[in-house]
């Protein structure tokens, strides 16, 4: 970045000549320019992304609240005609907008953000943010069973992408802008920066990357600060007093994890099965699908369960305070799975985070209620089980085990519950993985014809390490202080043709038998190996490094030493091109 500020001299200054003033300004400007290298600039930009995303999410939440109040009133009552009329009519409006004005805003937005990172060089049209904002606000505000978090994530990502493109930073940085904005949007929506950062790393970026972690954290924190300054720092839920007293109760929480895992599978399979079928229907039906979904959700509400409408945070709050009997909680969990499935597969823009938490809270409360009937000695309240249940569905359905644990901790502010949460979430995650091979977001992406990397798949990969291809150390190791003629005699009868030379005080080098014999013939037998070896010395590898890292050396060197991390003089083995290729399963060129 450069500038050439040519400032006209001001005649008012009595002490400085115009030339001096221009010089000072130029110096000041060039100093500032020097400070703003791209790395620093990117970090500062992350804060602005957080600020703008936070502002957008504040407006988004106001828009949802306002729409809800205007269309349904502050507390929807059962048996009111508005319950099914409003979401149905709003569904028609949303469908028309999605099909004609904002075609890229269907669904949650997590996949689109991930696609932007891996396929479209970080490009998300700003129009997506606008469309997502209005259509999701109408859909969620009118009662469709969807949540505001995923749209917030995409709105944040769109803002970041637009900023990145227009500020003409490097392509690599532009590509990373979307996840930075995604973290900001999600953190603002959840009021939970740690969960947002972890989710973006687990699900969007798909790998731990030190290069972007700082930016993601900065943007998440900035957006949460903005949201709290406008909407207050009230937690998402008023969690009742919870405590984990008896380790034997972990069995009860494990049972919750088991049931939650199966519920996650049922939810994911119903979404995964219905979505492509509805997308395959004729285009004209897409005008009606959100309306029919709204009608169904409204009908459920009309018949006695208005709790399933919208994000349902108030109902979760009440479930956590033991306001519902276990039968009603179980019914709400099932109805919410139905309502969210129809809302989501109809193509209505909106998120699945809040419904997932809702289903988990209801299921957890129900399981806790049943367990208390059979085991009255359990000390965990229904609210505690509801809280753990939220994490269970999050881990099982969204397949983000780390995020699920931290999310529960952040929304509850209670670290006593961490052990049950970890146990239940792990069980749920394992059950979901066993019965639903592909995580839900990857499944949706593949249904859209895209294949994106996932951290879960990377975790499953059997990564080869240097030690897997390592060969035993040769019996003949030369020293740099040895003379050429002595060394030539030592290797004369060896079956090997290449020998490692130990350098002084540390390091390794290579020499061949032919080189030694030639030097001896040339009368350089009185010289030490150190004086005839080529420089620089060989690079060294460690046994635990990925085998990929050896590839860049094995073509250049016949042997690469593998040394101990604690004692780099100690040789663990050697790597050769043949040994590496053999481990990868490919025949070497020479063989």
């Amino acid at each position, binding site marked *: *970045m450069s*500038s050439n500020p040519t400032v006209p001299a001001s005649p008012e200054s009595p002490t400085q000549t115009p030339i001096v003033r221009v010089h000072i300004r130029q110096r000041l*400007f060039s100093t*500032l320019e020097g400070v703003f290298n791209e790395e620093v600039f990117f970090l500062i930009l992350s804060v*602005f992304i957080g600020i703008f995303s936070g502002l957008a999410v504040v407006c988004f939440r106001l828009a949802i609240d306002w729409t809800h109040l205007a269309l349904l009133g*502050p507390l929807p009552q059962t048996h009111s005609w508005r319950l099914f009329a409003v979401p149905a009519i709003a569904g028609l409006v949303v469908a028309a907008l999605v099909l004609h004005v904002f075609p890229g805003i269907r669904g949650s937005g997590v996949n689109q953000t991930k696609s932007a990172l891996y396929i479209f060089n970080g490009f998300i049209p*700003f129009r997506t943010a606008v469309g997502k904002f209005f259509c999701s606000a109408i859909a969620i505000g009118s009662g469709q069973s969807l949540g505001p978090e995923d749209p917030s994530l995409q709105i944040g990502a769109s803002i970041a992408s637009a900023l990145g493109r227009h500020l003409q930073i490097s392509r690599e940085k532009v590509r990373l802008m979307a996840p930075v904005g995604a973290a900001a949007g999600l953190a603002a929506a959840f009021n939970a920066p740690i969960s947002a950062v972890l989710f973006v790393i687990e699900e969007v970026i798909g790998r731990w990357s030190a290069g972007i972690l700082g930016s993601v954290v900065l943007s998440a924190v900035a957006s949460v600060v903005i949201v709290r300054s406008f909407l*207050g720092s009230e937690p998402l839920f008023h969690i009742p007093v919870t405590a984990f007293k008896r380790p034997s109760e972990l069995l009860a929480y494990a049972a919750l994890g088991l049931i939650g895992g199966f519920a996650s599978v049922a939810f994911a399979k119903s979404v995964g099965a219905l979505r492509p079928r509805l997308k395959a229907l004729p285009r004209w039906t897409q005008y009606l699908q959100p309306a029919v979904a709204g009608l169904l959700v409204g009908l459920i509400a009309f018949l006695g369960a208005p709790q399933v409408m919208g994000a349902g945070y108030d109902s979760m709050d009440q479930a956590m305070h033991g*306001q519902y009997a276990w039968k009603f909680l179980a019914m709400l969990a099932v109805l919410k799975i139905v309502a969210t499935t129809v809302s989501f597969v109809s193509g209505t823009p909106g998120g699945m985070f809040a419904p997932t938490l809702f289903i988990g809270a209801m299921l957890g409360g129900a399981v806790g209620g049943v367990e208390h009937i059979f085991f009255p000695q359990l000390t965990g*309240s229904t609210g505690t089980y509801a809280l753990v249940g939220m994490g269970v569905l999050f881990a099982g359905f969204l397949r983000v085990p780390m995020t699920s644990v931290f999310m529960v901790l952040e929304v509850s502010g209670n670290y006593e519950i961490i052990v049950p949460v970890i146990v239940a979430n792990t069980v749920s995650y394992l059950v979901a993985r066993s019965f639903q091979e592909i995580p839900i977001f990857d499944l949706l992406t593949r249904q859209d014809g895209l294949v994106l990397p996932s951290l879960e798949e990377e975790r499953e990969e059997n990564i080869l390490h240097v030690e897997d291809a390592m060969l035993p150390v040769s019996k003949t190791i030369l020293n740099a202080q040895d003379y050429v003629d002595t060394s030539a005699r030592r290797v004369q009868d060896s079956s090997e043709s290449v020998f490692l030379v130990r350098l002084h005080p540390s390091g390794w080098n290579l020499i061949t038998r032919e080189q030694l014999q030639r030097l001896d013939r040339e009368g350089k037998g009185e010289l030490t190996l150190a004086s005839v070896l080529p420089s620089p010395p060989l690079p060294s590898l460690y046994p635990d490094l990925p085998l990929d890292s050896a590839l860049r050396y094995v073509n250049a060197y016949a042997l690469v030493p593998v040394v101990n991390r604690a004692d780099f003089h100690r040789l663990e083995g050697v790597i050769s091109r043949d040994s590496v290729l053999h481990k990868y399963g490919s025949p070497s060129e020479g063989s």
Partner: protein
Amino acid sequence: MWWRLPKLVPRSGPVILLILTLGAVAGFAAVSHLVVRYNANQQSRGRKLYASGLTAASSGRYDAAIDAFRAALTCDPANSQYQLSLARALRDSGDPSRLDEAESYLVALWQRTPQDAAVNLALARVAAHRGSIDDAIGYYHNAMYGVWKSDADANRNSVQIELIQYLLKKNARAQADSELIALATALPRDPAAHLQAASLFVEAEDYAGALAQYEDVLRLQSNNAAALAGAGAAAYRMGNYTLAQRYLRNALAVNLEDRDSRQLLETAELVLRSNPFRSYISDAERNRRIAADFARAETRLTACAAQAGVSLDATGSSSPSPLLRLQAQWNAVKPDLRQLQSSTETDLPDTIMDVVFQIERRTATMCGRPQGVDLALLLISEQREAATQ
């Protein structure tokens, strides 16, 4: 297309950051304006819902009140007054399962403002509902010494009285006594406050403390009928029938319709007239009273035996009724009555009256608490027993 951002021309880092800063400030200002307007609108809506919730709560319609307070909180989630009212409605709804939610709201409020007396009082009542005496006492104390938004002294006094009533209900007498002592020392010069304190002392069966409070009232209002009646009753319970007589007569002079005081006065006067152990009476009068009490005891014994279906003529039973044994004692002592005037034996009055007291106590147990002279004799017996102990 209209939604595309214009290409930003500057390539200089500082300029871009300056533009972004200006944009952030402008955005912040715009969103602030929006949020302020939205909040004002929501707060207005919240106030209406809150008012309807208060109306519902005051008429005992707690479900409607809870709905209204919840709706008010959706308009203004951080409003501590709404949260407090919702918590109170949840607590007072009579549904024990709602106590958890009430408590969580209150605990959240308490964490924000631990010194808030109203929040502490609400938490004390939740703890009292749960039966957690220690928690309740702690929160009541916090409420007493916490910050009240208005009328602090009266509120503290009222909280202390509520705590005492709670402790008395839970039979925590020792704690109630210490709270009562603390209350009595800090009462304002207000007859109503002293009367209330006196009634708490009565409830705690601390009649001396009650009498002191009633006398404080009388120092402020010498003709206070409630205080005169209360002082008379307290003195009566303490066994100070002379003082009781004086206060009860004055109470009746102020309020002729006071039947309780009249009844107590009659009994007190009977005690004073029947008690042979009173000081400053002559020997003749003492002997007359003993004879009258002795005769009265026989009448009581006969009436009780008839009521209980026991024949006092029956003899030779292997397990004779206690009433028969009492009659035997009475008959055994009867000859001594004639020797009262001539005898120099100082224990004789006690011996005779001991039979009288035994008859009165036993018949009270078997045939119910007596009236009139029998009641007076029973009270004298209790007084004597307390004095000997």
